[in-house]
């Protein structure tokens, strides 16, 4: 379907008789099925950013990275984004990247390292890394981490909204404890908790948010440092399952906005219309 003007630019109003100007670039079927949404998709053409502890290059479950940077705080307090030569310091980012690769083998994987340099100063580094990732225009950003600091909440909220309007999908780990943390609580992101099934493509919509979706997060085989694997559980690993499914959908339907994508996720969730 032809677009009038640039669909990535916002339309501020709609004059009479000009509905064509905001024509929707996706032909929606009567019933959205998983086959329509992401059947046979490999994630090709979609970029996925792992905002985490870095990613081990050449891990057999991760493969090639299209880019890897590290966000660091200089001594005078500025933030710098440099090519990342160190890879992954703790294994978390590699694990997330491996899950995305397993479900969406042809995505372009990018690593933005915001963890690993100690606990102090991690707030500004996380915000700087997220801002940088949004500016790059990645299609999907996986955030298997959160902050509890209110002082960062407002800025994170602005960043999450700006990603939402720039067609970058933020997929964020929810907390399984009753604590206030961000950015997963914001409605402009896709928040993910865990279910116990062993099917990597099984996911559920939660009609009682703030956690919006549940994905595989228990007993997951994850990529581990040094080229190995390990079995692990946590919402950290449920999140990249949804990030990968988003990539599969976007690969088939690149014009979807985050709002539309969330609708497709809803309509194809196991407890809604998918998985049957």
């Amino acid at each position, binding site marked *: 379907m032809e677009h009038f003007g640039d669909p990535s630019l916002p339309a501020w109003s709609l004059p009479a008789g000009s509905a064509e100007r905001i024509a929707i670039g996706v032909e929606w079927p009567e019933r959205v099925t998983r086959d329509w949404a992401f059947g046979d998709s490999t994630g090709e053409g979609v970029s996925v950013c792992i905002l985490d502890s870095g990613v081990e290059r050449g891990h057999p479950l991760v493969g090639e990275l299209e880019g890897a940077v590290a966000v660091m705080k200089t001594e005078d307090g500025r933030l710098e984004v440099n090519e990342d030569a160190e890879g992954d310091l703790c294994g978390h980012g590699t694990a997330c990247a491996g899950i995305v690769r397993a479900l969406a083998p042809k995505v372009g994987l990018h690593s933005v390292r915001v*963890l690993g340099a100690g606990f102090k100063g991690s707030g500004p580094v996380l915000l700087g890394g997220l801002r940088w990732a949004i500016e790059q225009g990645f299609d999907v950003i996986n955030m298997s981490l*959160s902050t509890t600091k209110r002082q960062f909440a407002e800025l994170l909220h602005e960043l999450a909204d700006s990603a939402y309007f720039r067609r970058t999908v933020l997929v964020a780990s929810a907390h399984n404890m009753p604590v206030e943390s961000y950015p997963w609580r914001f409605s402009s992101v896709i928040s993910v908790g865990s279910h116990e099934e062993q099917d990597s493509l099984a996911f559920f919509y939660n009609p009682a948010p703030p956690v919006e979706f549940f994905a595989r997060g228990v007993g997951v085989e994850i990529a581990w*440092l040094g080229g190995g694997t390990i079995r692990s559980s946590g919402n950290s690993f449920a999140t990249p399952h949804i990030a990968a499914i988003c990539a599969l959908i976007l690969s088939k339907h690149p014009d979807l906005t985050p709002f539309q994508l969330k609708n497709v996720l809803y309509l194809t969730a196991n407890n809604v219309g998918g998985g049957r």
Partner: protein
Amino acid sequence: MSDLRAAVAAGALGSEENYRELLQAIVEVARAIFGARASSVFLHDESTDELVFEAVAGEGAGELIGQRFPSSTGVAGWVLVTRQPLVIDELEQDPRFAREAAESTGFVPKGLMAVPLLHEERALGVLEVLDRPQQAAFSLKEMELLGLFANEAAIALDLLQRAREARAVLEEQDGQAAALARLAERLAEAEPEQREAAQRLLEALEAFLGASSGLSLDDSL
């Protein structure tokens, strides 16, 4: 005033010991409930950006208390910075992890559960449970139970930290506490009129400090 100071000191010192016992009781119960080989609580020392063993039950109890390692290493560091709980099985397959784990636990665990200790806005530390029985498959129920222990441990850790801060303030002879103590002493000896005026002054000071203390310099996650 010296009575007041002694009373406050006794409270601060006594409570520190109580909170430490509470923390120890929490790791003992966590270890027993999960049938685990060991359980420990790490405190994040903000001044050095390190994780410190505060309480250990089971394997390593008595030897590890006070040992410290950088906040960005190992599973505990990962849990602290990501704020996300984590469960790992079959750790012994990985030699690198085995070495790291041995450094931070005193033995090589087969598996572990780790959860951040979050209190209000702060991540105070990490609770770990090591080596549950092999036959017990991990489920979200365990994660929930772990979360409940973490809430308890976070409160105990917060109280322990506050008690230590109180003690440090009282021990600081020439510092602000000493100045405040002298002020309180003078106030107690003053004539009623003087005391009333001083009271108003103190209220004004309190209002001033209240209005200008909104900024936080802490920039961790």
